């Protein structure tokens, strides 16, 4: 009799533990930001895992990649199957670990890395850390990225259990938090975040002279690691600087990158030097006065980089692969629908 009771209690205990854990996990899902409207940048990293992951070209970097290159355009014009693993203010160590993460799944022909993030040698903002890291699947790369990114006052465990980070969101929950608890709607097109509206670039603030133009040791260290990793895996690396007028890209910075590229035998393209060739019109091709390209600007940049990828890096067209064609057809349909929707929203018709 006594023994029976003991077993019964043990069963109740185990069931309770399972139920409580499940409840807490649901609670966590509910409280974590969904990034489906307003600030959508936090959703980018995660969307990669839905793909088939056999891309020829993978972009790494911050807003200067995910807003400036249209993956749909690259497919349409060159048959290049690409993905942009970009996130807001992605720091260079985060790019490195995203590279590691990508290489778990696939081996692209070319990795394009935007070197703007060389200017930061340590994480500047906890919120950006979150948006670049949280979407990653658990792997040694994610752990490495967290450890490399944490600012003072951040705790590793808050990445493991994000409820600890977002527990105060109970007072800000909206319908979307319930709606997208389990399945989110995609917000990018293979990592490309589209904007169609226009805000001409005028009155660009004058650059503030800096005391020291040299990049930090930590930033260099991770650039080295990116180069080494690509080398070891037999992936070609293309360094770029996207054509954003602001934040200002100092010539002193550019010199350092040029020198580094020469020393390591890498191709480096500063789009700012080729704006005429690309055909960028800063009165039409940007949606925020020169910070980022809009759809028109992004398509021009894609046309330009696509040619280089094809001609210099020999990335082959995969047009004709039935499965890919199908996937891109669907992507293009969504892309066009989004153009339609945004044109209406911004009153451009």
């Amino acid at each position, binding site marked *: 009799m006594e023994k029976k009771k003991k077993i019964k*209690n043990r069963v109740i*205990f185990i069931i309770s533990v399972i139920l409580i854990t499940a409840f807490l996990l649901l*609670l966590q899902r509910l409280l974590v930001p969904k990034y489906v409207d307003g600030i959508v940048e936090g959703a980018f990293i995660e969307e990669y895992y839905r793909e088939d992951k056999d891309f020829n070209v993978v972009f790494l970097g911050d807003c200067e990649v995910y807003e400036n290159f249209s993956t749909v355009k690259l497919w349409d014009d060159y048959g290049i199957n690409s993905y942009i693993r970009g996130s807001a203010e992605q720091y260079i160590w985060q790019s490195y670990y995203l590279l590691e993460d990508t290489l778990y799944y696939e081996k692209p022909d070319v990795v394009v890395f935007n070197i703007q993030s060389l200017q930061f040698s340590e994480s500047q903002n906890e919120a950006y850390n979150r948006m670049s890291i949280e979407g990653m699947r658990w792997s040694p790369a994610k752990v490495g990225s967290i450890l490399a990114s944490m600012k003072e006052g*951040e*705790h590793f465990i*808050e990445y493991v259990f994000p409820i*600890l*980070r977002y*527990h105060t969101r109970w007072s800000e929950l909206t319908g979307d938090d319930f709606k997208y608890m389990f399945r989110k709607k995609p917000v990018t097109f293979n990592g490309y975040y589209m904007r169609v509206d226009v805000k001409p670039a005028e009155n660009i603030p004058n650059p503030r002279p800096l005391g020291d133009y040299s990049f930090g040791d930590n930033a260099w260290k991770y650039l080295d690691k990116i180069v080494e990793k690509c080398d070891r895996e037999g992936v070609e690396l293309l360094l770029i600087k996207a054509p954003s007028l602001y934040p200002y890209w100092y010539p002193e910075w550019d010199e350092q990158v040029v020198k580094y590229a020469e020393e390591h035998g890498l191709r480096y393209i500063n789009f700012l030097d080729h704006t005429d060739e690309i055909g960028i019109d800063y009165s039409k091709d940007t949606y925020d006065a020169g910070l980022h390209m809009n759809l028109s600007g992004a398509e021009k940049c894609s046309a330009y980089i696509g040619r280089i990828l094809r001609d210099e890096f020999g990335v082959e067209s995969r047009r004709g692969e039935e499965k890919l064609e199908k996937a891109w057809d669907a992507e293009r349909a969504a892309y066009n629908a989004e153009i339609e929707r945004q044109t209406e929203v911004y009153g451009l018709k």
Partner: protein
Amino acid sequence: MLLTSYEFIGFLALVIIINYLCPKKARKYFLLAASVLFYATAGLWGLLYIGAITVLVYISSRLIGKNQEAYAVWAKENKAVLPKEQRKAYREKQAGKRLLFLTVAVILCLGVMVIGRIPGLIAPMGLSFYTLQALGYLIDVNRENIKPERNFFKLSLFIGFFPQLVQGPISRYEELAPSLFEGRDFDIKNISLGVWRIMWGFFKKLVIADRLFSGVQTITSDTSKYRGAYILVLMILFSLELYADFSGGIDIVIGTAKALGIDVQENFIRPYFSKSLKEYWRRWHITMCNWFRNYLFYSVSTAKWLQKFSKFCRKRMGEAFGKRLPLYVATFIVWGATGLWHGFTWNYFVWGLSNWFILMLSEELEPVYEKIRGHIPFADKLPYRLFQMGRTFLLVCCMNLFDCYSSVGDTLGMFGSIFTEGNFGILFDGSLAGIGYSLSDAVIIAAGLLIMLCVSLLQRKGSVRERILRLAPPARYALFTCLLVAVLLFGIYGVGYDSTQFIYNRF
């Protein structure tokens, strides 16, 4: 390591597991190692202070113990041989010798404590708590209440037992030592009781105290804007915060010890339900009060010079007053010391003395009260008791103001403004919304305080946790989940919040 940090939770989980994996006899050594590690995370130089105190107390307690043993042997041998006078003389000589050892050690230890707490330097964590605990042990040895501990490591564990290092309680050797050194076996009940207690401490500290903090900070940070009725609000908010914070921390300490099978003495018994200030000091920070009573008040009041002074006074100033005066002197010393122990500032000194003054005044007025009570027909009924509690609570709130401001002038000025400012309208016109609480803060604080009040009321009929553990398992687990979720969601912690240090950590 704050008691509410992730690090502490992780550390605690490891310590509990390893503790029970250790052989029974090794557990005390493991706990000592864990304590040293715990203390080292707060800064290695802090180990220097606690090490110095431990060595000082160990050596002097052994010297005193040896002398006691030698005297006992001598007394036995000479009992029948020597005349009473001679034996008495020798006894007093030896007692004097021991007193010398004690005095030197006490002065040295207090010296260490004073050095560690020079204003402007960062005080080593818990210094004033473990110093008192160590001195209490030494005095108990000298009074022959306990035998000195021969094992240095055991004494070190007693002085440095890690949960107590942050903010007490100040344990007595005879109460803590048995369970501390026994290395009790794993008992699921102890774990349950301990974990519940820790969670409850987290609730009080993170949900109630840390949320109250912002209002307290707003009011105290601007002495020109927030005056008058705001001060009335402040002293109540601060007193609630102080209780939730301090007793919540103690809950975590006692719960931690409990989970390790160690019994630590209670430090609070619903102090805000006290009906007089005297009663309050028996229910608030009990272990500190016991310490000052046992080791300072009793020592001073039975000292020969004071007894002589007492005789002198009675002859010269009349029986009634002459009898009281020495007591007032002794209590004055005790309350002055209590004030200074909280901090070497005039503010705390005056705080101590105002406690002394009110306690002595009510002692003197007791006959008058008695008479008044005789004329009130409901003097032993609930409404009158509630009145007494409210009055005592307000009195305590007033004195807690000394803890809110850093100078006596500010404290008294702010207190005075309650009566001169005449801005009681702010209590009703919505101005209070501006002191830093959002609507959700206010709701959480109100609900938290209500829960704390209910638990206090339930506590009067015995341990709430014991009753919870008697519930059917599903109900018990559901209740625990509620508490856990409340702490998780409504607690103040993590990025965006500077975890306020435990208010009592400083002392």
